[in-house]
Every structure is written in C-alpha cells, then in structure tokens.
C-alpha cells in the first residue's frame, strides 16, 4: 500500500504529524504553563510594587505630616498626655490647688482607673487610662470653685473633663457671717460636688495598673 501511495508522500505526512504533535505538546506543556507562571509572577510583583508605592507615599505623607504635627505632639508629651498617671503627684497638685484657691475645705478622691478602648489609640498600640476624680468642695465664694476647677483642668497631666458638676449656695451674707470672717473663721457659703475624668494615653504593654487602687489625698 505504501508503495502505491508513495514513500515520499507518507514520509512527508509523518513529518508533518511529528511537527504538529511537537508544536501542540510544546504549546500545552511549556508555553501555556510558562505564561501562566510568568503572569502570576508579574501580578504578584505588580502588587508588591503597588504596595511599595503606597508605603512610599505613606512615608512621604508621614514626613510631611510629621513636619506639621511634631510640635503639637511634643506639646502633648510635655503635658504628660502619654504618661502613666502618677497619683502621688496628682494628690500633691490637688493640695496645692486647694491652698491657692482658698478652699474652705476640699476633699478629693481619685478612683480606680478604667481602660477605655479607642480605635486611634489602638492603632498606636495604646489605650486610654481614665480615672474618675470625685471632689467635694466648700468655699466662701463660687469664684474660688471656678478657679479650683480651672487649675485642675489645666494643671493635671493629660486631659481632664467634667462628668458631673453641682454647686449650691449654702447661705446668705449676713452680719454673723461677716463677723465670723473677720474673726478668722472660714465659713462656707458655697459647696460643690464634682466628678471629673482624668485621662491619659498609655502603651498597652503597660496596662498592669488595670486595678489601680483609688486614692484620697
């Protein structure tokens, strides 16, 4: 049969079949997997480059923002916003404020600190330490109460905010009261009950003070 058909024809056909099979196999077993792998590598590399670009832009933004915010941040640090709450110092400070503001009496109680979670504090690896401060104040004049409050808000390290404020006029200015003042007594005309929240931001690793005891100066 092959002789009838012609050996040359059969050989050419076989050669063509071999060529076809070779190309087909190389397409399936080499080119396609190779392209797929290369595309995967390219995709991963692009993602890495994109991430790198983002990091770079972020770093540049950070540098730009740091230029603008570093002074404010240093101010915060100096103010003690990022420090642990030193209750001994706070107690001394409250006593000094009491004297400065001429309180007839002042009872302060720094209660156990609570930890408040905050997304921004968490991003920085910190959380907010919040200590309620209960104040029972008695003064001759309500202005003294305001001054006391002003000094507390502006002297304690960190941030102090009012949670509750109640002030009552206990008596009127009478002749008896004036005589008592002149004799050196300190009669109280105004009393106030305050609850303040004292907050600072501390690193999460330093949260061993979770159950810190309250403190009354």
């Amino acid at each position, binding site marked *: 049969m092959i002789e*009838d*058909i012609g*050996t040359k*024809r059969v050989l*050419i*056909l076989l050669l*063509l079949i071999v*060529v*076809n099979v070779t*190309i087909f196999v*190389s397409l399936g077993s080499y*080119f*396609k997997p*190779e*392209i797929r792998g*290369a595309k995967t*590598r*390219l995709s991963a*590399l*692009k993602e*890495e*480059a994109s991430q*790198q670009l983002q990091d*770079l832009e972020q*770093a540049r933004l*950070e*540098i730009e923002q*740091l230029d603008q*915010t*570093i002074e*404010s*941040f240093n101010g*915060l640090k100096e103010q003690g*916003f*990022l420090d642990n709450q030193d209750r001994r110092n706070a107690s001394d400070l409250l006593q000094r404020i009491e004297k400065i503001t001429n309180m007839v009496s002042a009872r302060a109680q720094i209660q156990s600190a609570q930890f408040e*979670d*905050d*997304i*921004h*504090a968490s991003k*920085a*690896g*910190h959380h*907010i330490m919040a200590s309620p401060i209960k104040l029972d104040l008695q003064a001759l004049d309500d*202005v003294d109460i*305001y001054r006391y409050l*002003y000094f507390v*808000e502006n002297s304690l390290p960190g*941030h102090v*905010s*009012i*949670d*509750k*404020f*109640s*002030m*009552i*006029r206990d008596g009127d200015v009478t002749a008896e009261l004036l005589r008592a003042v002149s004799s050196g007594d300190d009669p109280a005309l105004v009393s106030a009950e305050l609850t303040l929240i004292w*907050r600072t*931001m501390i690193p999460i690793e330093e949260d061993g003070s979770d159950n810190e005891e309250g403190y009354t100066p």
Partner: protein
Amino acid sequence: MAISLFSQQKNILMLSDDALSIFVGQGAGVKLAKTIEWTDPDFEFIVGKTINDEGKGKPVVILNDMLEQHYRKEKITRAGVGMMDRNSMIRRKLMAAFPSYPMRAFLPLKDKGAKTKTGAAADTYLFAAIPDSGVFKQTVDVVQKGGLNLTGTHLLPVEASDMVQQLAGKLLKKKPSPKSWTIFIGQHRHGGLRQIVTRNGDLALTRMTPMHDMNGDPAHWAREVVQEFKATMSYVSRFGYEPMDGLNVIVVCDDESGVELEQTIGAESDFFAISVSDASKMLGLKIDDLDQENYADVLHAAWVAGRPRAKLPMRVQEIDRVERPRAVIAFLTVLFLCSGGYLAYQAMGEFSELREVQSNISKVAIRKARLTQEYEVELERIKEFGVDFALVQNSLRVKDMLDKQHVDSLSLFSAIAKALDGNMTIDSITLEPKKDDKLEAFLSSVEGMELPLIDLPDDFRYDALYRAMLKISYPTTANVDRANREIRQFSERLQKELPDHLIKVEKYIKDYAYTENVVIDSAGGDEDKLAQDFMAQILIEGANPQAQPSDEEGVQ
C-alpha cells in the same frame, strides 16, 4: 510556453497499437524521450528508467491513441430529470451504451437540441469508452511498480479537439464559424494517420488508418492521405456536412508534402499544411529536440502536457485504487500543513506573549527596586525624627477627640455671669454632659460590632453637648409678677449670651404646673412649700459656647 502555476509538469505515455511513446516534461515543454514496442523484452525496465531518469519521476498521463476507441453521441432530454439526478442518469446510460468496456466517460457537447413541438429540449453528450487491453494493463503496471503518480488516462482525439479549434482560429485569423467543419490530419510516428474532425470545437469524428512511411515519396504519401481524406469526407457527409457549412483542412507535414497535398486534395476548403514547429508556435507550445517536422504525435503530447485539466478524463479502476489513498494522504498532508501553520502561529503568539510578560516582569522588578530604594531613603528620614509616626498621629487625634468632648464649663459660667442682673443670685447650678443623640443613633446602627473597631466618620461632630440647670429663689414676700418678669428677662439675656443654646424657663415662681414633687406637710411643712413656690428653674442645653472669652474675669 509559459510555466503554469496551476498545472504541474507531466510525462505523457502515448499508447499506439504498435508501441508506447514516452514524452517527458522538460522545462516549459515536452520532448520525445523514447518509443518502445510492446513486444520489447525490456519494456518494463526501459519505460521505468526513462520516466524516472529523463522524466524525473514526474506524474504520468496516459494518452490513448489506439485504434480501438468507441464513441457515441447521445441526446438526453432535460425534462423529467432533476439537476441532482442528471449525472447518475447519464452514467447509467453510458454503462448501458458500453457495458463491456471498463473505462468510460461522457462529455457534454455544445450542440443542444432545442425544444420542439414534438420533443423536449435535450443536451448532447459524447460517450466514450476504451477496452481494458493488455497493453494498457502493461503500461499501468510499469507505472505502479515504478512508484509513479498516474494522474489520468485521456483519449487523444477528444483532448485534441480543442487544439484543432484553436489552431483553425489561428490559421484562419478569425474564429471559425460554429457551422464550419475542421479536419485535422497528422501522421504519428508509430501509429497511422490520425484524422480528427471537429465542429464548433466538439469532436465529430476521428479515424486512424495505417500509412506508409511519410519520409518516402511525398507524392505517394499525398495520394494515400487524399484517399483517406475522401473516405473521411464520405463519413462527414453522412454526419450532415454541407459544402455551404465551410470546411477547414489542416495537415501536419513538411512543406514538400504540403504542396503536393494541396494540389491533389481536390475539395472546396480552406487548406493549411503546417509543420509541427509552426503549429506549436501558433499554439504557444514548446517542443524540445524536435527531429521530425512532420510527425504530429509530439504536438498532441505537448498540448495535453500543457493543459491543467483534461477535457475528458477516463475513469480507470487501477488509477482509482491508488488515487483514493493518495487523495486521503494529500488531504491529510494539507490538513496537517494547515494545522501545523496554525499551531506555529499560535506558538509564535505564545512565545511573543511570554517574552512580553517576561519583559514586563523585568520592568516591574526594576520599578519595585527603585521604589524600595526610595522608600528606604524616606524611612531613614522618618527615623531622623526619632518618633513613632502612628503614635504622633493617633495621639493627636485622641487628644482632639477628647478636647471636642470636653465641656467648657468656665465659658458657660462666664456667659451666665454676664447675663445675671446685679440683684439676682443663683442658688444652685448643676451641669452634666448630655448624651449625643446623633452618636447614639450611629452606635446603634452598628450594633454588634466591637466599639474599638468602629472608626467614626471623619465628618462626625464630637461637639460636647451638656445640660445645665439653674435654680433661683426669691423671698416669699417678693412680687410674683415682677419676679417672673425678671426671670424671663434673665432667660432672654442668657439666650443672647448663648445664641446657639436652648434656654428654657422650666419653672416660674408660684408655678404649679411644674413636675417636681410637691410637698404637703400638715405638721408644719409650710416653709418648705413656700420655698418651693418661690424657686424658679432655667434649663440650658447646648454645645460649648463659640468664641466665648474664657478668662476668669468674666466668671468673677
């Protein structure tokens, strides 16, 4: 003759009754390579060698010039036969006409039978058949054993009819009239005198008669030709020839024989005696190594070799048996050639794509390396600050949030002090932050999420809302209307000092609509009751006063 792109060179095996003439394709023409008698003991060897050596194994065509060829004209009506069935019907008629001849074929002729009153329109076909002779088998065997490609078997008179028509046109210098008859006469080297009669390009009659050697006496040769010509004319007359139709006589011979013949032919005709060289030039054929100008067989071989397709290919079983597998092989070859081309194109595309992707990988890698380098430089700059950027940014945000939530009590007290009349005193002030309804609504909308994970919208206002209550007492002897007027005026002044706040007198003095507990004590509680009656209450709700002076002077 120009080489055709569509017709490959062929070797022509011309079968005559006495011998086989081998014409080999050479360049753009043919040449007579060998003539071998059928009885030659080395027939097979010589034929095979000649075709392979001189003919370079090119495809072979058998051109039958033997005496025994059978023709018949058949008129087949068109009516009642569909186009699809026509060929099979004609084949059946062909088989019926020549039942004992294995090689048959039919050819539609130009002569059409018009529709008449008595009969339907008909087509005329030329039926042809040749016997399966011993010499034919002998030739086919040689071809097949030599592994040569036998492409077809043709009948010389049928294939030559077009040549005769074309040659007549060239000699007459005009297209022959469709009615005119043309007789082509040529002597073959080992055959006899071949006369081919055509009308309107179709074969009308052919005769092969033995002849003396034409290289002898031209006059004698002419007489013999005239004798055969007259016999042919008697046949032609029976086929309907009329002198008024016109007659062209073309004789292939040398000049001397031609002159002799022209004088003796004695018929009213356009007579042309032409040599093989002149005829081949006129037909655009190329004949190599032409040794005799008066043998017409080489002219026929050149004509058939130059035609891309045969006019009437004969079906031969021996050829079909080989041709079918060859056709399959050829089809597969073309198929694999095409698929190979397509796959190669695909491979080129894939290769190109791979190169492109690899090139992109290199580009991206370079870009990434550059970005990494730049990033490291920026990191160094950040390190120079000596701070943690996240701590800087987030601590400032936390502080900002706390500041916004901080109730600026001292500014509020300052505003209240400004609004107070010199005669009025406040008995008590209570102040507490008020829950932010907007914030509460937002938090309830994200119920189920851990609060630390919630990042409030950037445009969210953290304004510290608060609620303050002022209590003002009057002596029981005070004029109620006057006191209430003072309270109202005080609230109006407060509103002016705190424009964005809600200022509301919750209770005027002697106002029983108030919701606080009313103490009724029959055992001497009148003083409390009176004190309660002369107590006014003012509610303040709002956020931190905007741009209020926060100096202590204002409070004092």
